[in-house]
């Protein structure tokens, strides 16, 4: 009897330890690391919290007037009704123009090489636009069919009568309920998408 008591005590102790180990493994907090200072960056990581900045965020806005490196052209038309009308009437797709002569000289290409590429614009369209505007541009995307977002117009809508310039302007700034896609698509990608939207519009009007 005496031994029985002892063994049962031992068993229960082992059980408690086991349960302790198992319950320590919690998915809501990260695991232990061997050498944390080899895991964690000394430099600032993206989105990190940091005391080095007044608002405690590593991700700061670039200084005012900063422009990205590379082939960048500022978009100077304002986000107003007048700006929209101006863009709608005047803006054209630079990808449809012949390649500028200085570039032609440096990389030795035919200036009339087509740069509008639906195999670039198409996939981008289906990621960013098709979810509402529909694969055919008829305003019947998945979110519209599920009645999450309503009132998405078809590209051949007569009242809007979209043009190259108005498409680009609206992608850049957004309009009414549609938001701006300037941060998801760069300038080149935006123009590729514009070209693809125009193709869809032409297909709808057939």
């Amino acid at each position: 009897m005496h031994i029985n008591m002892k063994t049962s005590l031992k068993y229960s102790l082992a059980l408690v330890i086991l349960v302790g180990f198992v319950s320590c493994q919690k998915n809501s907090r990260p695991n232990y690391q061997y050498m944390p200072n080899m895991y964690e960056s000394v430099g600032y990581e993206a989105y990190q919290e940091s005391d080095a900045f007044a608002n405690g965020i590593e991700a700061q806005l670039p200084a005012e007037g900063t422009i990205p490196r590379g082939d960048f052209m500022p978009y100077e038309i304002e986000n107003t009704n007048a700006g929209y009308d101006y863009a709608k009437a005047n803006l054209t797709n630079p990808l449809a123009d012949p390649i500028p002569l200085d570039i032609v000289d440096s990389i030795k290409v035919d200036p009339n090489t087509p740069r509008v590429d639906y195999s670039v614009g198409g996939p981008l369209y289906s990621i960013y636009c098709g979810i509402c505007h529909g694969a055919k541009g008829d305003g019947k995307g998945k979110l519209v069919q599920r009645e999450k977002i309503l009132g998405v117009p078809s590209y051949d809508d007569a009242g809007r009568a979209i043009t190259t310039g108005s498409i680009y302007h609206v992608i850049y700034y957004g309009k009414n309920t549609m938001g701006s896609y300037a941060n998801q698509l760069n300038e080149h990608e935006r123009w590729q998408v514009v070209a693809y939207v125009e193709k869809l519009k032409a297909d709808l009007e057939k």
Partner: protein
Amino acid sequence: MKKSYQSLEVNSTNNMKQVIYRNLTSKILYLGFILLFTFSTSLIAQEGDAANGKSLFNANCAACHKLDRDMTGPMLRNVEARLAEEEGLDRAWINAWIKNSAGLIKSGDTYANKVYNEWNQTAMTAFPQLSDQDISDILAYTAQPKPEPVVVNGGGGEVVSKEPGVGNNLILGALVVLFGLLALALILVRRTLNRFAEAKGLEVVKEKGTPIWKAFIQNQFLVLVSAIFLLLASGYFVYGYLMQVGVDQGYEPVQPIHYSHRIHAGDNAIDCKYCHSSARVSKHSGIPSLNICMNCHKAIANVAPETLAEGKEYGVDYDAEIQKLYDAVGWDGTGYTGESKPVKWIRIHNLPDFAYFNHSQHVSVAGVECQTCHGPVEEMEIMYQHAPLTMGWCINCHRETNVKVKDNEYYTKIHEELSKKYGVDQLTAAQMGGLECGKCHY
């Protein structure tokens, strides 16, 4: 909205007679309408068909107008009656406004200019394609009284979500009771057996042998075997424990805003790259900024009733979570207040500082599906780490994955030469240098 009508219909199928009669009457009504249509169009223009109006409203107006909430434009419930009462404006004015609001403003109409300026000079799109009949249908739809679906949906949702919970608890309770009874029965059986033995005068003899632990120690072979076994077993467990240190597979932190990948990527089939757009072009697959949420959630302030009911199963109020988003981004329902506060998302996938990983290289160049590493994200109500993210796991994939060289001019030459060198048809990432230390550690 639609669901509420459906559930109403489901409820009303209990009394079948009514449904049948209603269908009949509505059919007769439709016939009547068609007859009326053929004889007089002017009468119809007065009446308007609310059902057609709803589909027209959803297709043309709902982008900017809601019935009971100001959005890009004002709310439109009973707009015709309100305009007639408050401004004395008739159907002709409404028709002129809808078909060409800009023209009406230019013509110097007082109320047109007043509304235009009240709404920050947001120009309403012209709808020349809508006929007078279409407009009267839409107005008939806006004149419908506001439905009160809250009670119906609340009740229905609770019933649906509670049933499985109650069922599970019942089964568990029954099992506990069953096991308790079993234990009790065994004890009773033992006691009665002992009592029988006593009654028959049988002595339950307890042999006084060597205790089991002494017998165990005396058998040296058994001691050796069990020592080896114990050593091996503990070695196995210690090794297993040490190997999982630093591995966060299954890590599932509670995020400041409950974001359901299941709803967004699964049900609504929004592409991963819609929100994580930098995965295409940068090392990081960035955490989406809140304005990307607002691309859709400007229009979606409340989830559908059926989605809300689903949320109860997970113990989440999705509407409250959307409100958290609005608070963070500083949105008051119609415009930005300018007071935003950052959301402290908790990063789930962390690679150690000494390992380099580039998203665009895998997503854009290699064309690897996001799910290959991140698992079935479209089914995750709460995001967790699917893969172990260990070096062995990386290397394994590099060994097994064939490089997509087809139609890729960049790879044509190197592919031919390397294929010749290794004597293979398909090159894996490893054979193209995917195992070199310096690719990831430098």
